[in-house]
């Protein structure tokens, strides 16, 4: 059985590792102020479903501007280079996929989990009361974890 609250620290560590190693970004667990969230008009959400010892969804929601920033860092593009929305969606899916895989491997290494292809969409904002808030390059990132039937 998945108990999201007990996974909080492991998820924060997994997200920070992926942000640093693949996206050259600094991330740490930090609650945003209401103003930080309100200042971001557009958001994107990447969702990955996992099944194994337990099953659920990991949803990572980021300001769209951060999505573009992380994508540029991953690809090593020039700051003025225009990135396609499809490229940013692909990369945010990979970010969620890597964060999920890193968390499950580090916290439950004896078990094997299957991860679905990530789904990425534009959303109105982060979900209410996520498990975890991260600050990534100074911008708020919501990390939500929900258990579901296997």
């Amino acid at each position, binding site marked *: 059985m998945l108990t999201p609250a007990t996974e909080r620290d492991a998820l924060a560590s997994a997200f920070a*590792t*992926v942000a640093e*190693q*693949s996206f050259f970004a600094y991330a740490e667990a930090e609650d945003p102020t209401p103003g930080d969230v309100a200042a971001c008009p557009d958001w994107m959400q990447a969702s990955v479903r996992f099944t194994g010892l337990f099953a659920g969804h990991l949803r990572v929601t980021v300001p769209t501007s951060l999505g573009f920033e992380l*994508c540029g860092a*991953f*690809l*090593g593009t020039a700051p003025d280079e225009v990135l396609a929305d499809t*490229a940013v969606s*692909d*990369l945010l*899916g*990979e970010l969620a*996929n*890597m964060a*999920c*895989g*890193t968390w*499950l*491997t580090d916290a*439950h*290494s*004896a*078990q*094997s*989990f*299957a*991860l*679905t*292809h990530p789904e990425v969409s534009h959303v109105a904002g982060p979900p209410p009361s996520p498990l975890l808030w991260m600050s990534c390059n100074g911008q708020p990132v919501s990390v939500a974890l929900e258990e579901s039937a296997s």
Partner: protein
Amino acid sequence: MDRPFTILIVDDSAMMRAMLKRAVLLASDDIQIAEAANGLEAIGVMEAREVDAVFTDINMPVMTGVEMLREMTVRGWDQIRRVVVSTDGSDARRDEVRDLNVALYVRKPLAPETIRDVLVELRYAHASH
């Protein structure tokens, strides 16, 4: 003239394929790269051209990396060196692919130095045969 060492990169993320391709070519610019978005596409590429090594993700739509590695074993393509590049580094997954002739298992996220080390090992093994 010798054919260039050819690596097939198999990943459903086009951006991840682009990053791996860039890392490989930065480490060694005399390598030829082929790409596939899933295991089934990769089997088609390996049927159509000579490939020396395959870098494959595990979780992919249509045909997973594990299913592709099994198919390669069934077809007797043991001369193609197999490298798994996956977020899933669990003991159970490593055990699952152990019997599928996997030379190296690399966890994502990965640093460019890791790719360089993998290439050194692959090319050393290739030259020894």
